[in-house]
């Protein structure tokens, strides 16, 4: 009985030590990096505006009138930062909600600012492009260079409406 309790306490403490717990204020207000590479991040969901009839009910108030969730913003990142790092840093600085699935190179963006995949029809979701090219790798496998322009775009038609038609390859 005592050993079981001890093991339980050990597990709980080790789990707690592995977690950093922050209040929302601390998380959002922690200061950004001073030096490193600089990239431009923007988040846009203007395709939803053409498909308002397909949008999940209740989300109408969460789509900006012009579809711009984040206008092009300079973000400072570490040397070997990925497109995902740029997005998460941009979301943190601008207090945007972000949810993803997976870890490491397999990170998949499910939703940004409460706009999720499948929120606007069966073919909707988030895609990203760097310097107007859509990379065919996950956003946490794409290493950014200084001065890159990263756009996260919401599609309602599997990429066809934002210039990245899915060809089935």
């Amino acid at each position, binding site marked *: 009985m005592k050993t079981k309790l001890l093991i339980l306490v050990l597990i709980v403490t080790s789990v707690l030590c592995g*977690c950093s717990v*922050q*209040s*929302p204020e601390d*998380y959002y207000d922690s200061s950004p990096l001073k030096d490193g590479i600089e990239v431009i991040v923007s988040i846009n969901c203007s395709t939803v505006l053409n498909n308002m009839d397909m949008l999940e009910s209740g*989300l109408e108030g969460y789509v900006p009138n012009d579809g711009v969730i984040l206008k092009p913003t300079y973000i400072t990142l570490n040397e070997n930062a990925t497109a995902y790092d740029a997005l998460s840093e941009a979301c*943190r600085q601008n207090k945007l*909600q972000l949810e993803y699935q997976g870890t490491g190179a397999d990170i998949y963006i499910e939703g940004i600012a*409460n706009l999720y995949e499948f929120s606007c029809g069966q073919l909707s979701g988030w895609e990203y492009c760097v310097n107007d090219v859509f990379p065919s790798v996950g956003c946490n496998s794409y290493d950014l260079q200084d001065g890159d322009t990263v756009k996260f775009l919401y599609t309602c038609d599997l990429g066809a409406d934002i210039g990245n038609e899915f060809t089935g390859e």
Partner: protein
Amino acid sequence: MLRFNSFNPIAQLIYFTAVLLVSMFTWNYIILLLSLLGAAAYCVLQKGFKVFLKSFFGYALIFLLVTVTNPLFSHKGVTPLVFINDIPITLESIVYGAVLGLMLLSVILWFSVFNSVFDSEKLIYIFGRMLPRLALLFSMVLHFVPKFISVFKRTLSAQSDFYGKNKFRQYIGAFSSSVSVMLEGSVQTADSMSSRGYGVKKRSFYSRFPFTKADALFLVLTLALLTGVLTAQITGQLDFMIYPRIILCDFSPVSMLGIADFGTLSFMPFIIELKEELVWKYSLSKI
């Protein structure tokens, strides 16, 4: 005496279907809370508070588990409460988990009420004419589990010192002998049934469940109340939203009516039982 238990099984079955359907498919916290309270009140009246509380702790654990796990997997919602490893735990996902847990809890409780009210005789009464074999098989299977447990317990106590102190061997031994007892029993049942002429002719039925005026009244009341809830549900008056921001359901006359209807529906067994208890109490001779 007019206990809830003694209503006609068909009326009871329709009642349980109505309550369970509404509890399972109406995503409304007030409805779920009423459903939970109605089932809990009936359980308390039947089993007593202490026995109910004992079983309720186990169910409450399920509720807690769902409430705690949902925010770990879902990070939707506009109100982050705390960030753990840069991942937000939001108020909305906790509420979503709680509502889901409430639904599970109330449905489990209603099924436990259903179990205590609906015995195998009632099942045969309802399904015996349509599916005689299946109904018989089903009731025999239902009977098998409690019987096995009681045989197992008796064997275990009889063989308590048979295998020395080794508990594992004790249980295995008792298990093996109770399985053979049960198998033997089923062979005997089959023999006994065929020697009494089971399957020779079409079966006739005797049931002790008349359909009385009280049953008709109960049925009509159930259906009327169900219609009230369904009207409120179909017109969307009971909807409330959790993601991305919690918006409570609005209280229009239709939604109030629906909620009141469901409250009456879920408390109906409790009210019937309570009335009988009181009538019984006050009709006792005071001499």
